[in-house]
């Protein structure tokens, strides 16, 4: 794995590193899925993680967010060692991921999907004695987030009834609700059909907005799409990792 600036040489004033991994490795019963991954995610930058199918992009995401425990290596987030921190804790620290398959709560309404994400920072997670009406104070913020991604007209629909592309967009809205410091998006555009072309078209503006609001974003894609001024990591299938320039 290597790091290659997309456009020209890196500027002399590099922003500070917020997330870094050194010698990351994961074995699955003898099969080495990820080997010797070193990466640095910098403040207020969009990075992309690319590679062919099966190269281990999603595994790297799983390792970084601690959904999988690394077999070897070390992960640091904002100067703090998170190599053995549980995944929910990592999310609370501000390193938030999305999933390759759209991860939503299908039998909750679109609005509730976002409100669930807003509940924890508000300290409304464990309150089993209060009515659901106590969540109404989260509604304005939730509606604002739905508007950011263009889902405001579907707030009362069941999330499971949304089209595939809209589910992905909803997932992004719930992820943003956490005010993440670093956002890891696993193939956010994968599988979007014609009906979602518009969503994709508007999304580049959306990504910019996201990039501004959070510290850093990392996007994993199966196809290298150049994002100007962004940084690109590539994962190669062969080991030792080959250097690929996008």
């Amino acid at each position: 794995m290597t790091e290659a600036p997309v456009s020209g040489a890196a500027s002399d004033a590099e922003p500070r590193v917020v997330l870094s991994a050194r010698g990351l490795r994961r074995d699955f019963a003898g099969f080495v899925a990820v080997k010797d991954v070193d990466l640095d995610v910098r403040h207020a930058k969009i990075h992309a993680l690319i590679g062919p199918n099966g190269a281990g992009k999603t595994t790297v995401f799983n390792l970084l967010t601690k959904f999988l425990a690394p077999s070897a290596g070390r992960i640091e987030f904002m100067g703090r060692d998170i190599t053995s921190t549980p995944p929910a804790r990592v999310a609370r620290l501000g390193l938030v991921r999305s999933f390759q398959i759209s991860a939503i709560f299908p039998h909750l309404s679109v609005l509730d999907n976002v409100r669930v994400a807003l509940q924890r920072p508000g300290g409304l997670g464990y309150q089993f004695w209060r009515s659901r009406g106590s969540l109404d104070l989260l509604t304005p913020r939730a509606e604002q987030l739905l508007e950011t991604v263009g889902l405001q007209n579907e707030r009362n629909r069941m999330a499971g009834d949304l089209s595939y592309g809209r589910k992905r967009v909803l997932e992004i809205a719930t992820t943003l609700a956490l005010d993440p410091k670093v956002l890891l998006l696993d193939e956010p555009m994968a599988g979007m059909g014609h009906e979602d072309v518009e969503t994709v078209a508007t999304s580049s503006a959306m990504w910019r907005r996201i990039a501004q609001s959070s510290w850093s974003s990392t996007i994993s894609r199966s196809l290298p799409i150049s994002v100007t001024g962004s940084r690109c990591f590539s994962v190669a299938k062969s080991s030792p990792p080959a250097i690929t320039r996008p």
Partner: protein
Amino acid sequence: MAELTSTGIDRQTRARTEWLLVGLGIAALIAAPFFLYPVFLMKMLCFALFAAAFNLLLGYTGLLSFGHAAFFGGAAYFTAHAVKEWGWTPEFGVLLGVFGAAVLGLIIGFFAIRRQGIYFAMITLALAQMFYFFCVQAPFTKGEDGIQGVPRGHLFGFIDLSVPLNMYFFVLGGFLIGVFAVWRIVHSPFGMILKSIRENENRAISLGYSVARYKLAAFVMSATLAGLAGAMKALVFQFATLTDVTWQMSGEVILMTLLGGIGTMLGPIVGAGLVVTLQNYLATSEFPVTVITGAIFMICVLLFRRGIVGEILARFSRGESDAR
């Protein structure tokens, strides 16, 4: 915008009908003992609460416990022992049973939530079976005989619970408190998180929720309420036996809940009512009860998988959306 307000009104009228139905139901339960055999009704209420407590876990958190008899039967033993051997008043006896079930729930839940799906069910079954053998061996449970002749005593020291109607209203009160607790938990901020864990556990983790804690909390709450049901049952029948801690009892509560409809407030209550009624009326006949309930369960699984109440609600909302 017009659409929004109309759905708002719809919701309001629906809420009003719901409250009306709840009011009618409570009125019917108050009137029932004057027409039906109180002990039968009390048995029904105990099992209905047991099933409602179980549904909190299966229907709203997505955890299938195969060991809930331990909490139901365990609480029955604790209450029976406290009332009979230590001479406690019924309200404290019931409280001890409830507390005991909560502690058992904490212990069993602590180990079980580490695994998911079928492994979770198997661990709860294994630990509940361990509790069963503890009950067979422990001296205070009196082994195969069980704790017999438990006095109902005087509630708060002056209400004689050996009067069937007094006992009935005591049980009805416990039932309503228990079902209200389930309703409150389900419709709370905490309940929202439980549902999101049921829907997509990994997503809940990635949103920063320590799902293990939520699951354990739900498990303990469910066990506590199952304990309330078991404690009251011990006083109703004036005995606590091994029957209530067997795995068959764990199976029965699953059956009741599925039959009525998981994830609905009313489903488990209806399911429990149906199963208890069948058991009651078939007990005197030659025909084996388990064959009938088994056949009904098969029909339910084949024809209406959402359960009785679940299916009615689905039809109702479908008709509504057609009309719109």
